[in-house]
């Protein structure tokens, strides 16, 4: 777990400045939309990474929490007129509570069985919201009433404020991750990811640690759900509990490097940018070409860099340190 020194801080400062002025540098709203999606999936990936990356509990059911966050804030807003800002936190708490029984069930299983169980929980939640029409608009979903410029209701006339909201969310998630990485919890998570029995042998209460990190991870994922619904002004079970959300959360982390602070961000920048650019260049020419190329990139990373891009960089960095210890 390398710490930042001189150059590291400079790069981080530079990136921060660029991120802060980026929406004003690029005028096109298409580009801002891509940035928002990149930040959103970086955020979801970072939330996923806490459980899936550090503790290597490969969840493919994070859409469950994304959807719960989205539905909680939307229900509160439409039925009770409560601001999505409050709804967002409420959604996070609902997801956190939901993670307890889901975790209680799923953590009995290990490896692929755990993964399948998480997929099932997200699907079951989607079905519940599809079938119970009186409760939450059933399959047709609902649009969020457009109030024009209403910052207190998380509604804005341009995309730029959304950009800053999701940038803020990502920063919070990264700071939480950085804090956990250096703490006892961080070491325990990695130990669990490496070998659960060996971790138990040195006093790690594995079920408790898993439960705690699952709560943090689902809380954060739910925030993304609220944000996304507010951003697209629409909710239905298919978008809120979309399996793609679960997949993307895992995928960006795997490509970028699981169990690393910046892995999900780097993975998302690579995947989302490529996918958006491919779609705009090739989307209309030959159907499916952009997906094919996207898939080829994925296969290339997983075949040649199974530890992800960050994992590779850390290896190279480590090798350089060993050959030239003076730099450490």
């Amino acid at each position, binding site marked *: 777990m390398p710490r930042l020194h001189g150059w590291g801080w400079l790069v981080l400062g530079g990136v921060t400045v660029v991120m802060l002025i980026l929406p004003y540098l690029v005028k096109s709203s298409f580009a801002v939309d891509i940035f928002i999606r990149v930040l959103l999936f970086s955020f979801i990936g970072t939330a996923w990474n806490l459980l899936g990356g550090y503790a290597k509990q490969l969840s493919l059911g994070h859409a469950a929490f994304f959807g719960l966050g989205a539905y909680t804030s939307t229900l509160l807003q439409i039925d009770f007129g409560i601001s999505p800002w409050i709804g967002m936190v409420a959604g996070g708490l609902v997801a956190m509570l939901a993670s307890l029984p889901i975790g209680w069930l799923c953590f009995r299983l290990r490896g692929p069985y755990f993964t399948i169980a998480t997929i099932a929980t997200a699907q079951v939640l989607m079905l519940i919201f599809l079938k119970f029409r009186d409760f939450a608009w059933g399959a047709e979903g609902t649009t969020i009433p457009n109030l024009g410029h209403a910052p207190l209701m998380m509604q804005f006339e341009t995309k730029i404020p959304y950009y800053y909201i999701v940038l803020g969310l990502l920063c919070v998630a990264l700071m939480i991750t950085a804090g956990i990485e250096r703490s*006892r919890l961080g*070491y325990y998570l*990695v130990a669990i990811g490496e070998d659960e029995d060996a971790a*138990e042998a*040195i006093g790690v209460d*594995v079920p408790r640690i898993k439960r705690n990190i699952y709560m943090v991870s689902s809380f954060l994922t739910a925030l993304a759900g609220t944000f996304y619904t507010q951003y697209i002004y629409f909710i239905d079970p298919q978008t809120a509990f979309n399996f793609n959300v679960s997949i993307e959360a895992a995928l960006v982390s795997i490509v970028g490097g699981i169990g690393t602070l910046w892995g999900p961000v780097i993975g998302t920048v690579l995947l989302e940018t490529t996918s958006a650019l491919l779609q705009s260049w090739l989307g209309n020419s030959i159907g499916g070409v952009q997906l094919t190329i996207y898939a080829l990139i994925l296969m290339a990373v997983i075949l040649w860099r199974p530890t992800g891009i960050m994992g590779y960089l850390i290896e190279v960095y480590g090798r350089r340190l060993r050959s030239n210890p003076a730099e450490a």
Partner: protein
Amino acid sequence: MADALVIKNLSKRFGGLQAVQDVSFTVTENETLALIGPNGAGKTTAFNLIMGYYRPDTGSVSAFGQEIVGLRPHGVCALGLARTFQVARPFGGMTVLANVMTGAFLRDRSPDLAREKAREAIEFVNLSARENSAARDLTTIDQRRLEMARALATQPKILLLDEVMAGLNPSEVDQAVALVGKLSSRGITIVIVEHLMRAIMAVAKHIVVLDHGQKIAEGNPKEIVENPEVIRAYLGSGYAHVPAGAAP
């Protein structure tokens, strides 16, 4: 000396296999007890029963007077029992230091304190030179050392060592024997499972022999090597001709 670990009538059955049957023995404080017996005798199962990985069908285990059957492994560890695994199970992707720190966190929440305690443990097992290596890059003996350091970092009063010398060459065995002696002189009670009689004779004054899940003998090394039942079940007749005094 007080009793550190009292095992009474411990039994465990896996389907049709009676892995451990009615085994009782007592480990007194600061002694080194060796648990020996042929493959499949139930030695590792006994470890797993003591440490809470399996729940015994019957019987009790108490550490310093406290019943520990029913506790989960991390709870047993918190009470001051630590173990190593028969096949070393380091956290491969972590550095040696991070591995041992993870153990030290049991007693010290702060990373700085844990790092300090971890370094002491690493120093103790002579692994300081490899502190920043990834655990998976270590040699077999260094991985065993790492496991010991990691267990040691939890500040155990009782240490269960499962075949820490298997697969080591003779000079490495000597180092491991010295290390076990060093642990013992630190006041730690040790239960060691081992096949290597040379090593056992060197470290243990008290031996329990298991065969087919049952205790067939208990005593000091001299009594054990002369016990006809032990010779038949485990040591083999060749061993009987070696005078007991030849072992150190």
